[in-house]
């Protein structure tokens, strides 16, 4: 899906993902039938330079797999990943090296994401060593700079410490420092704040936002928490069961959610108004579908309030551009 603006193809985009699929093979027993978990099933998205987008969905919807497949930590089953006009979909490990330098990963569990036996300095040096920064002083300089960027200051206090000596927030800052030390253009932040105390969440998000503004970073922010996205990203993509069901600018989606699933998600955001505390929220019934054997037609149809029998449970809905740059994958908005 290329960004169309006034009929002209503007190829300012940093990342184009087209029809990306990632299936995991499972085999039950030695002679068992091969089956596939369709974790990501035909997802397309576009990210412009210096843009932040959020991918939102409940657990098991494939959003983490999508992130890792974009980073080529998983081999894509189908589709294309185009980064800075280069097709990286099937590049070999060696050819990928420049891509590794251009991308960064921030994971959910900061303590697990840091090797416990390395010092802060060593952790930050590793990517530099791997990418051939041989000069020790050059490495030191960049380590200092990265630590200052994530505000782990005074740097001297942190540089010799091991990860377990840092607090959760500091650990996550260190993870971010490691992700940006190679000066990438794209960062995938996979639930970067969900394991942190509420008090430091906003700090970390603000830090990411500042880095994004300062260095024109493209950020894909993966979360299950719609409430944090509005502070952060210009665009939101909603994922459900391996499909991208809706994508639009943040304020549009929050003001005018189109897909029944998006509406349900918005509906369950906690309301800070105490007078509403006795209102029982309307949660969509049922469980997320089994991705080994997803429902036919629209994958949300068994849980959907507006399900149209004979259409929704028969044929997969197309992606429809309802408003400008507001896409939805639902039969309610047109049929072909």
């Amino acid at each position, binding site marked *: 899906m290329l960004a169309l603006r006034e009929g002209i193809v503007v190829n300012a985009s940093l990342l184009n993902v087209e029809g990306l699929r990632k299936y995991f093979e499972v085999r039950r027993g030695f002679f068992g039938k091969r089956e596939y978990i369709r974790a990501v099933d035909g997802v397309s998205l576009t990210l412009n330079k210096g843009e932040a987008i959020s991918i939102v969905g409940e657990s098991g919807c494939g959003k983490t797999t999508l992130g*890792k497949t974009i980073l080529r930590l998983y081999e894509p089953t189908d589709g294309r990943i185009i980064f800075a006009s280069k097709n990286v979909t099937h590049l070999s490990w060696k050819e990928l090296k420049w891509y590794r330098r251009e991308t960064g*990963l921030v994971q959910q569990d900061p303590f697990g*994401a840091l090797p*416990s*036996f390395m010092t802060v300095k060593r952790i930050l040096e*590793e*990517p530099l060593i791997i990418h051939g920064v041989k000069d020790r002083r050059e490495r030191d300089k960049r380590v200092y700079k990265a630590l200052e960027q994530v505000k782990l200051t005074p740097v001297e206090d942190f540089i010799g410490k091991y990860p377990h000596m840092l607090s959760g927030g500091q650990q996550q800052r260190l*993870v971010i420092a*490691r992700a940006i030390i190679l000066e990438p253009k794209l960062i995938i932040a996979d639930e970067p704040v969900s394991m942190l105390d509420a008090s430091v969440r906003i700090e970390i998000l603000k830090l990411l936002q500042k880095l994004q503004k300062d260095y024109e970073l493209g950020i894909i922010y993966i979360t299950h928490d719609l409430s944090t996205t509005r502070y952060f990203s210009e665009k939101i993509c909603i994922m459900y069961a391996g499909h991208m069901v809706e994508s639009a600018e943040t304020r549009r989606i929050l003001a005018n959610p189109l897909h029944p699933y998006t509406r349900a998600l918005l509906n369950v955001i906690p309301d800070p108004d105490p007078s509403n505390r006795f209102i029982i929220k309307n949660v969509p019934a049922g469980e997320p579908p089994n991705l080994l054997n997803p429902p036919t037609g629209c994958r949300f149809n068994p849980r959907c309030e507006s399900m149209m029998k004979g259409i929704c449970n028969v044929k997969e809905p197309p992606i429809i551009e309802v408003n400008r740059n507001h896409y939805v994958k639902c039969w309610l908005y047109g049929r072909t």
Partner: protein
Amino acid sequence: MSNIKQSLRTLFAYRSALGGLIIILILVGISAYTIFAIPYDEATKLWRAGELYWLNNPRNAMPSWVNLFSFKKMPETIILDTKKPQLGASKALIPVSDKITRIKIEFSFNYEYDDFPSELNLFFNSNFNVSAPQLTIHWVKPNGGSIVLKSFLLSKGEDRYYISNDDRLARELKSTISRKINETIGYDIPITILLFALEDSSILDPSTARVMKGNYKLWIDGIAFEANMNLDVKLVVYGKVYSWAGTDHLRRDLGIALLWGTPIALSFGVIASLSIALIQMFIGAVSAWFGGKIDTIIQRITEVFMVLPFIPILIMISTFYKFNIWILLVVIIVLSMFGGSVKNYRAIFLQIKEFPYIEASRAYGASNFRILTHYLIPKVLPTIIPSIVLSVADFVFLEAALAILGLGDPLAPTWGKIINDAHSNGALYKGLYYWVLEPSLMLAVTSLSFAMLGFALDKIFNPKLREM
């Protein structure tokens, strides 16, 4: 630096660790001393030199320190040599005319021990042209009694007279003494007793025979039929104790083997234990990390090696090829490389492989090899240090066990080899307990020290075992 200090303090909270470490340091000190004092080539040469080299040593002598624990003082070896000017050995070669030289050589020594010497030998080194000198050897006891031991013609160059092996002399002396005390000596009495015992009825039984203490003399007179000749004589009165370690059946100083056994055992144990652990860990990591076909192949090989009986195969190989000890080490490493621990390590690495930090390292482009060596192995390494330390003792014992079975390095002087010699020469039947005890004690102390350190390390690295 402060880190090391901190770790040592934690470690020394366990007394056993301190004790074990002290013993290990002492053993390392002994090793260092040995390597510099007796180079390995020299040690193996000495060890294989054969009996001739060691002729000055008593056979099967106990270590000297047994005298500290006994009222009965065992004799030390007395060596008197006319070549080296010393008290108690004198030599006179007097040219009588231009055709005749008179020879007069005298040895005298004090014998104050409570037991008889083990042997008595004379070594001659002569230099003459035409006719052999005629020599007569006299023996004078402290009580003044004089006996002619032998009259003979000396052969040229090196010659020896094993006094204690002279059967004719033994018969003669036996009948002389029997006549003197008017009773027949009813047993096969050794010459050493006949020459050194009090000549009374106590001599009738070997257990009551007592040493006549005092000054003994052995003198040689003779005539050589030329003017320019030379003769040197060495008298060796072999004792029953020798040095701090004693000697074996080939008169070799056990000390050499005990000393050299230390660096060999330590390096053998440490190299085997460390390299096997590291190789197994690496194979386990490769198996877990790459998965798929590589994993399958490694696991099948491991299973084959697990089924093969390690010790019987090792025994078979060492029976067919008499290995150098270092080749044996390589064989042991190769045979245990795919041991069962590979499966344990694989299981651990399969778990670590999924840790987010590994994924992060892939995201910034770490290569497979770097992930193996910098991310997977360092995570596990600290936890296996106790088992590496503990298994050092296993390999020290394995080497000793093979040597005891006669399958070790035939040349290297090792503890196991001493026990093997002791066993094949019936040391324990002959009461030569020191021969077995000394190497066994070294083995026991070595494994004890590693066990003490290893168990303490285990408690530190596995907090579940930590005492409150």
